[in-house]
């Protein structure tokens, strides 16, 4: 629009061999502007983001121009880029699990980044690290700085990654799905934080997200990407009110909303999963305390709760990955470890749960091979990839050649490979854009109805849970604070905590969301 644009991307092309991930993209971000970049999973959002800072793998070929102010970043030297990185432009990576160094504490990592651009002493850097962790809403930051990434929950890792990006107060933050792993309350805090940064410091934000609620809540302008090309961009209100492209319309239509599904019938079958009095401690910290939960055959139970409340821990206990300190977990009436052929598990971090050296086909076929499933494994793999909407030619790719959402779908395909009787899914759709998410949810519903498998569906996305689950359990600080039929828990919550959660769900409508935020109206879900 003007020469004062902070970031000007023009004619950006990125390809990996034959794969053209970004095709002639033009985009600008003005100072203090929040631009949302949305689009289907695999449409090139993350690649674009990485291209800006020259962080693509060596296999990538980049053409076009990326101007930061007047400074050309494409083809710039490593040292020139280094000065820009972190200070002028910071980046929040999509998959926090692999974005952090496993062998250093998070505090150390933040301090190292702080010291990269500022001559801080070790102590001040340490103190600042604690401050930053506090800023992104990590409870008890003084202890957490000393934790290693594997000791944090998914959402906590994501917040650490955000803290890394905020460390040097950059002019532009490129945030790639910064809130996917966050429950709605924390998400709201982070969004508030970002907004505050923009308001106070004039920080511009290039926000990559599939969450239309977040877009509606935060963005000034929205750009829609489809298969590497920009298909539409407009101010947020305009786009939501009158999307011009069919694709955008479909995207908006696919956004799940709370309370749109009819109440499900109660289930009374035998238990597929039964947890009784499960308690898990990590050192002094009690992650779960005497949790009781059961999932009947053919039933979908949604497990919601704030980040760090113990959802994944519970999932891991159910899957037999973790032995509880007290209590028992029974899967299909036996020990989880003996029932492995009959249940599927979707990990919260799709990236790190795939062997980097195996092809996608090998990853998906692994359960078939392990259990010597009858039939043609190739055909089955093709079928599964198709079901999660991955093109067949992805079969020969390696995990690192996939986008975040694509990897997540590989995880789902793998979990479904053996037609399980029970599916334990830890945030299975967190990295998926609404349209793909809708089809995955449709797939799960369809399979569920056909095959009648049971499912423990862990998610922080209440709308998604509402559209799938029969029953919902709410976890808070390692305890189940409420559970019951989905429509009751999510529409007429009784526990104060649940109510807070439900209220924090952003509305996929900028006007309504703004109104709610500013407290002008209380629009019910």
């Amino acid at each position, binding site marked *: 629009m003007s020469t004062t644009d902070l970031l000007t991307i023009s004619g950006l092309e990125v390809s990996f061999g034959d794969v053209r991930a970004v095709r002639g993209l033009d985009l600008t971000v003005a100072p203090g502007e929040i631009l949302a970049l949305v689009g289907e999973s695999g449409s090139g959002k993350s690649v674009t983001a990485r291209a800006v800072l020259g*962080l693509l793998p060596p296999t990538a070929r980049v053409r076009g121009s990326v101007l930061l102010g007047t400074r050309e970043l494409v083809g710039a030297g490593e040292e020139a880029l*280094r000065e820009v990185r*972190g200070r002028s432009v910071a980046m929040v990576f999509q998959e926090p699990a692999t974005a952090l*160094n496993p062998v250093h504490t998070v505090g150390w990592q933040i301090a190292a980044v702080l010291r*990269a*651009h500022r001559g801080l002493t070790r102590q001040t850097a340490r103190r600042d690290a604690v401050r930053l962790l506090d800023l992104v809403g990590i409870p008890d930051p003084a202890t957490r700085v000393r934790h*290693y990434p594997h000791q944090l929950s998914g959402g906590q890792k994501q917040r650490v990654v955000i803290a890394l*990006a905020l*460390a040097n107060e950059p002019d532009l933050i490129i945030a790639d799905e910064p809130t996917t792993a966050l429950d709605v309350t924390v998400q709201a805090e982070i969004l508030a934080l970002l907004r505050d940064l923009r308001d106070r410091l004039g920080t511009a934000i290039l926000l990559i997200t599939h969450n239309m609620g977040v877009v509606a809540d935060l963005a000034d302008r929205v750009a829609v990407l489809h298969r590497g090309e920009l298909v539409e961009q407009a101010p947020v209100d305009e786009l939501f009110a009158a999307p011009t492209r069919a694709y955008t319309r479909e995207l908006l239509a696919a956004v799940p909303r709370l309370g749109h599904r009819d109440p499900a019938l109660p289930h009374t079958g035998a238990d597929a999963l039964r947890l009784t009095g499960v308690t898990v401690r990590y050192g002094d910290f009690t992650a779960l305390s005497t949790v009781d939960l059961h999932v009947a055959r053919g039933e979908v139970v949604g497990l919601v709760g704030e980040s760090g409340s113990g959802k994944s821990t519970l999932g891991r206990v159910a899957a037999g990955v973790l032995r509880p300190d007290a209590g028992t977990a029974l899967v299909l009436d036996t020990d989880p470890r003996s029932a492995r052929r009959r249940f599927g598990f979707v990990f919260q971090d799709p*990236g790190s749960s795939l062997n980097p050296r195996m092809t996608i086909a090998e990853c998906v076929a692994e359960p078939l091979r392990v259990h010597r499933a009858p039939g043609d494994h190739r055909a089955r793999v093709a079928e599964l990839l198709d079901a999660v909407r991955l093109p067949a030619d992805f079969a020969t790719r390696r995990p690192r050649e996939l986008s975040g959402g694509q990897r997540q779908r590989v995880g789902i395909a793998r979990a479904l490979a053996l037609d399980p009787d029970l599916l334990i899914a830890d945030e299975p759709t967190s990295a998926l854009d609404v349209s793909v998410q809708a089809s995955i949810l449709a797939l799960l519903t369809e399979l569920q109805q056909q095959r009648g498998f049971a499912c423990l569906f862990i998610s922080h996305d209440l709308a998604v849970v509402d559209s799938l689950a029969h029953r919902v359990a709410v976890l808070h600080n390692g305890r189940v604070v409420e559970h019951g039929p989905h429509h009751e828990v999510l529409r007429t919550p009784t526990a104060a905590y649940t109510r807070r959660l439900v209220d924090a769900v952003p509305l996929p409508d900028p006007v309504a969301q703004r109104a709610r935020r500013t407290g002008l109206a209380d629009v019910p879900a």
Partner: protein
Amino acid sequence: MIGYLLRRLPSALVVLWLASVLIFLLIRAIPGDAAAVLAGADAPPEAVAAIRAELGLDRPVVAQYLHWVGGLLSGDLGRSFLIGGDIAGLVADGLANTATLTLAALLLAVLTALVLGPVWAATRNPWVDRLLTAFHTASVALPTFVTGVVLILVFGVFFRLLPTGGVPPAGLLDRVDITAQYLVLPAVCLALPVAGVLTGFLAETLRGELRQDYVTTVRAAGVRGREIVVRHALRGALPVAVTTLGLQTGALLGGAVLVESIFAWPGLGLLVEQGVTRRDYPVVQVLLMLSVTVFVVVQLLTDVAHAALDPRIRLGGKR
């Protein structure tokens, strides 16, 4: 940590016992015994028999073993068949020399690897890469007995800068500068292949580590390239380097045999080599036991270092 070591203690003791049996039998499996050496080429059979009896070699092997172990347990290492003196004294002298030499070499090798490995892994300059490749190739391809001879010829004979071998006449502790002069050639000679191997390993594991996603994160935060390698990636690469270092301890002790001989450095390597060729059983037994002990300790340290370096192993928690 102490608890960890205590838990390992029983297995370590069992190993020492097994090793003692193995060593005892193995060196007796080598044909020929010390009596032949002591008797000399012109001795009549009676003389050999007399010597065997005097050394106790005519007794049943089990009795010999029990006698030896009994001695060990009561703190008596025995006497050398050939050198005559008490083994304790011999070993103490040799140990001081060998420890000085190997530790100096170790230090040299580790420092070299810590400097060159990261440089090699991170460099984009083809010349630096070639230079380091050449260093690695040369250090690995040149056996100690060649480097030793060349070092002596160049620094000892041609330039006459350093002594060609031997230990400081007045002892290692007398004057540090003199000791350093005597130490530098053998230490360099011993350290070179180890340095090459360590550098290679460190560089290669660092390259692997630099391909990880978290490196992108810190790059994105504008952390300097050098810093990424040294502060962020190195930690992840160290466990392999530590294992290699543990293995290279073997190379150091093995190399010491040759280096001590080339540089007339009277250490344990020389002693053990002599012991084997002259079938000086008591000496070999004690030295090999010492060597096994060192290895058990090195291995324990490696494991401890591993756990310390990788929190996922240390805090692995529940599985």
